[in-house]
């Protein structure tokens, strides 16, 4: 398809919409969401009460519950007694505090009530969730992402070194491409229930924070978490280690952050002379250099050429498919070109053939380069170009 034509037609179609002021409506909706969440919180309190009396309720999120305390035995003192949950009966199986407790099983963990700490408040709020076969039974919001569950198999290990086998589990909630994840440790309480011991580590749902992709545990209680760099252009992985300190989990080994990825494009344009043609117009080549002065390859750079009045683009070379499309029909007209990938330290040259059909001297124009990923230094992403006409 002709991208340029489609762009123009979409822009024209978008002109049909009538601008309206949505400020008051947005604030009203915001207040309504706040009330709905408060109601959900109250419902969660009732549900917890029901669970404590052995009533079979599914757990709802309690967003006021975060941040996650180090020990949360009071939260899930009794498991939800459904047939598929293999937890022991809470009332008939109480053991002395110093007696060994039954090790947690993978099945139990995959069907447990798990308390999750502060997360992405908008789509994956903190709270207590019931899991079935490793997936959350209820989504925290009606518009929450469908992917909300455990990643991989829970790891059974004595994480708090009390002689009983606990569990460590990686849980994901994915509102966007970057997943919101946290690693949580579970243990068995004195009453025999499965409860959250504490949060090992957590990421955010926003880009550049890193993703948690895998967990490993060691017999000494160390939890190793594999972090993947989610910065644009970053693909590094790190293992970070955490240990239970008696009151919470703390990082004991490995890096604490990813080194900042350097992404930097620089654009430069030389002065351009337009020579008079037989039809009294002026024509000449604008030569532009785009250099990757960052540390990572730029896969899909693009460049926008803003044309001064009475100047048009007749040909372009050095861009992908040697093709330009109208991004904005103006005035001023803005032409968009996609560039081939640029390796670190490399540059490419673009030649625009411009035609000036006005009177006097043409005004200067502007070039903007974009890497589509966010640039560390935006001050060199733009260059002005000057045009001068000559008779021959």
């Amino acid at each position, binding site marked *: 398809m002709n991208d340029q034509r489609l762009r123009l037609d979409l822009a024209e179609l978008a002109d049909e919409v009538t601008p309206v002021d949505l400020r008051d409506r947005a604030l009203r*909706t915001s207040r309504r969401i706040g009330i709905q969440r408060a109601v959900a919180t109250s419902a969660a309190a009732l549900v917890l009460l029901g669970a404590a009396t052995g009533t079979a309720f599914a757990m709802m999120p309690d967003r006021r519950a975060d941040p996650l305390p180090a020990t949360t035995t009071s939260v899930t003192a009794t498991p939800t007694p459904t047939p598929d949950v293999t937890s022991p009966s809470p009332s008939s199986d109480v053991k002395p505090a110093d007696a060994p407790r039954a090790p947690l099983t993978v099945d139990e963990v995959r069907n447990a009530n798990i308390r999750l700490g502060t997360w992405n408040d908008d789509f994956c709020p903190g709270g207590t969730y019931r899991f079935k076969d490793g997936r959350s039974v209820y989504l925290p919001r009606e518009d929450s992402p469908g992917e909300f569950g455990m990643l991989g198999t829970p790891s059974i290990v004595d994480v708090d070194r009390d002689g009983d086998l606990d569990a460590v589990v990686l849980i994901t909630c994915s509102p966007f491409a970057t997943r919101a994840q946290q690693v949580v440790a579970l243990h068995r309480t004195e009453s025999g229930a499965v409860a959250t011991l504490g949060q090992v580590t957590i990421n955010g749902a926003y880009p550049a924070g890193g993703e948690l992709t895998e967990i490993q545990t060691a017999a000494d209680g160390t939890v190793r978490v594999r972090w993947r760099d989610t910065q644009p252009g970053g693909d590094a992985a790190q293992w970070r280690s955490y240990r239970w300190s008696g009151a919470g989990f703390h990082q004991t080994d490995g890096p604490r952050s990813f080194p900042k990825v350097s992404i930097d494009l620089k654009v430069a344009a030389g002065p351009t002379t337009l020579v008079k043609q037989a039809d009294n117009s002026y024509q000449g080549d604008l030569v532009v250099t785009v250099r990757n002065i960052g540390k990572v390859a730029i896969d899909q750079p693009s460049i926008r050429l803003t044309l001064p009045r009475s100047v048009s683009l007749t040909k372009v070379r050095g861009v992908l498919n040697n093709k330009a499309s109208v991004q904005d029909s103006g005035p001023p007209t803005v032409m968009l070109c996609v560039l081939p990938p640029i390796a670190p330290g490399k540059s490419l040259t673009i030649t625009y053939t411009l035609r000036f059909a006005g009177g006097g001297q043409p005004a200067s124009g502007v070039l903007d380069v974009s890497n589509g990923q966010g640039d560390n230094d935006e001050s060199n992403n733009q260059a002005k170009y000057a045009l001068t006409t000559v008779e021959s």
Partner: protein
Amino acid sequence: MDPLLSEFDSFVRTRTPALLRSAYLLTGDQHLAEDLVQSALARTHRSWNRLHHSGNAEAYTRKTMYHLQVSWWRRRRVPESMTGDLPEPRGGDSAPDHASQTTLRLTLRAALAKLSPKQRAVLVMRFFEDRTEVEAAEMLGVTVGTVKSQTSKALAKLRTVAPELAELYVLEGSAR
């Protein structure tokens, strides 16, 4: 006035027109577009304490808008309001006048309604907002491969449901 609220007001008033344009292409309806932007702005407002520092408020709002649009559609499972019969194919005039341009717009609007929300979203992001495949993938929460395949499917479907558009959007191979 609370400075945070004042900042939010300013954000809403300056960015709503642009957000509405994208929302209109996503929904094909003025009221649905307003609802979509209003809902996304409401969520932005709830996170404003965090967002106003980051400078990413618009990106967050747009992400929310795309996310809501797809999830609303999943729940509704009914065609959007802009569906309808496609206009008759227009004649072979290569320089469209006002009437034929209006027909073309109606054709495109109806054809967009035949696409899935994700297909429509990738078209809007790639060809209206001029986002890269990487950006579109990040916005939608899918892989770059999915963006590529959805774009390809969307364009193929446009050709199928509105052959007259395919004639217009035929690859010209020229510099412009």
